[in-house]
């Protein structure tokens, strides 16, 4: 935990620096009779972020905060495994949206999660994995007219569009 605290502070400090540099693309100084320029608001806030990161590092050095005192691992085996299995699953789902569309990705993700992570029976898994995308289709595409991406499955939806839209 102690090492993670420092790594996070350094990374966030670097990010603050990047934000400052990026904000400086617009004038961040004082425009006479107008007040701050367009970049001033984010620039100075990023500067405060940088100061906070340095402050966090000082606290780390002095061992003042609970994470900087803790010798426990930032993530134990269980946490790391769940993070990769679950976070990876969500990452995969979002990636799949570009290929098989929102509905295909949702069905596959639910199949993966409920059946393989949750170890539920197929009788539980199938109704959820099929029911959720169908319900979402009627709610979003049909009722709200928010057309969710279909990816390469678009042709399959054309008959449905004819009936419901």
């Amino acid at each position, binding site marked *: 935990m102690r090492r*993670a*605290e420092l790594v*996070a502070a350094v990374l*966030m400090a670097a990010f603050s620096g990047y*934000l400052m540099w*990026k*904000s400086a*693309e*617009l004038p961040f100084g*004082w425009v*006479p*009779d*107008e*007040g*701050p*320029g*367009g*970049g001033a*608001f*984010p620039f100075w*806030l*990023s500067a*405060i*972020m940088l100061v*906070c*990161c340095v*402050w966090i590092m000082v*606290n780390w050095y002095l061992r003042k*905060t*609970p*994470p900087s005192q803790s010798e426990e691992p*930032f*993530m134990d085996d*269980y*946490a790391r495994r*769940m*993070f990769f299995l*679950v976070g990876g*699953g*969500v*990452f995969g*789902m*979002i990636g799949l*949206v*570009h290929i098989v569309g*929102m509905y295909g*990705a*949702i069905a596959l*993700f*639910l199949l993966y*999660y409920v059946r393989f992570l*949750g170890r539920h029976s197929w009788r*539980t898994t199938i109704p959820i994995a099929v029911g959720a995308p169908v319900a979402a289709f009627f*709610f*979003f595409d049909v*009722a*709200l007219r*928010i*057309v*969710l991406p279909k990816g390469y499955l678009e042709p399959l939806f054309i008959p449905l569009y004819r009936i419901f839209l």
Partner: protein
Amino acid sequence: MEILSHLAGGFLVVFDPLNLGLVILGVTVGLFIGAMPGLGSVNGVAILLPMTFLVPPTSAMIFLAAIYYGAMYGGAISSIMLGIPGASTAVATTFDGRPLALKGQADKALIVAAGASFIGGTISIALFTGFAPLLAHVALDFGDPEIFALMLLAFATFVGLSGDDVPKTIFSICIGLVFSAVGLDIMSGEPRLIFMDISGFMHGINFLVLAIGVYGIGEMLWTIEISRGETQMSKATITLPGILAHLLGTLKLWKSWTIGSLLGFFVGILPAAGATPGSLMAYGITKMTAKDPRAFGKGEAAGVAAPESANNAASTGSMLPMLTLGIPGSPTTAILLGGMVIWGLIPGPMLFVEQTEFVWGLIASLYAANLFAFLINIGFVPAFLWMLKMPFTILAPTIFVLSLIGGYAPDENMHDVWLMLIFGVGAYLLRKLDYPMAPAVLAIVLGPIAEPKMRQSLLISGGDITIFFTRPIAGPITVIAIALLLLPLIQLIWRTIRKPA
């Protein structure tokens, strides 16, 4: 009298079949969300906000407020039955609710919780109805410097009062504000902070992307990590005579719920505080002033009544500054405020003048939501207990799916969905290191309002920063805000001075 006629008009809005249906649906969803460990009102409101585009703004707001309300009731259910707070707002309910359940008095704890919630809700809504128009009337005179000063105060309360790590809290506020500045600079129209020249940043970062990332994905990852192992569910037998007896018993705990309701309401108004500290404080004070403080923590009904009345009162209290000043009093109301902006309503005192139907419809809906949440909670306890058995491995993927769609729907853009994932994972990792997330969500909602207010104020004064100090209302507010910002520093110096002595 004028208030009563407005309120009557509000009830006409609520009794519209669509709105009444949404109140009932909202409290039911809220009760469920509140009861599920790992999900609270803020998660429910953030994830479900995109779904409300189906109905008009007033109905959408009524629905979301009903969820907020229902979740305050629901949180007690798992606190008592499982010993895990259903939402952070129900932490204090576990202290005495769980021991009661272990003693075989789960039914008593559940009914007292519902009764106290109803009383806390009723008292706070009555206070709300009285205070809101007054405050809005005063706030009508507020100009840009006053609004900016109020926002500064909102952020300052996080630093001075939240009790989280100070540099991490300030960091969280600033990062939210910087993210809110992404997109086009409103004054000059120039693009700014277009990271890596990705065109998706041109339309800015929608607050929902951050909110769903933090409260959908981040929260689920967090809950999955901490909720390992099996939990033991207590048994509750609910009978009609039992319900009536315990409700009468609740009335006798008047001291607890009076403390809870009043404290909750006023603590709820403060931006940094909200329902969680409100209920903890109510518990603490009730315990301190009780005849036998040692009975607390071992199954004392008064220890359930105080926090439960307080968290409902606080949820109402936090809506007061949101509606009248445009400054949210809690993370959940920050998201409601962001929703109002999406629907084209400008939060603040002008709502009371221009959108009376919306404002009074919402206020009246709180009365209805409170009543229905109470009735549904008491009437369907067995159903909620059954739902608590729902495995987390079904609930969690459902939340991820709702987050995916919720992240996409507002701007119909996959860029937002990827960004939401990054925010969610980042929030989870930073949260493990005690970085508070609520300030960032509040900041990304308030940022687009705060920055132009600050710059317009400076335009008025010709770039003179003293405008925030010299105006009669803005001045004191700014001074209090600065004092709150310096509070941790003063405490530090105080402790250093006292140490050698």
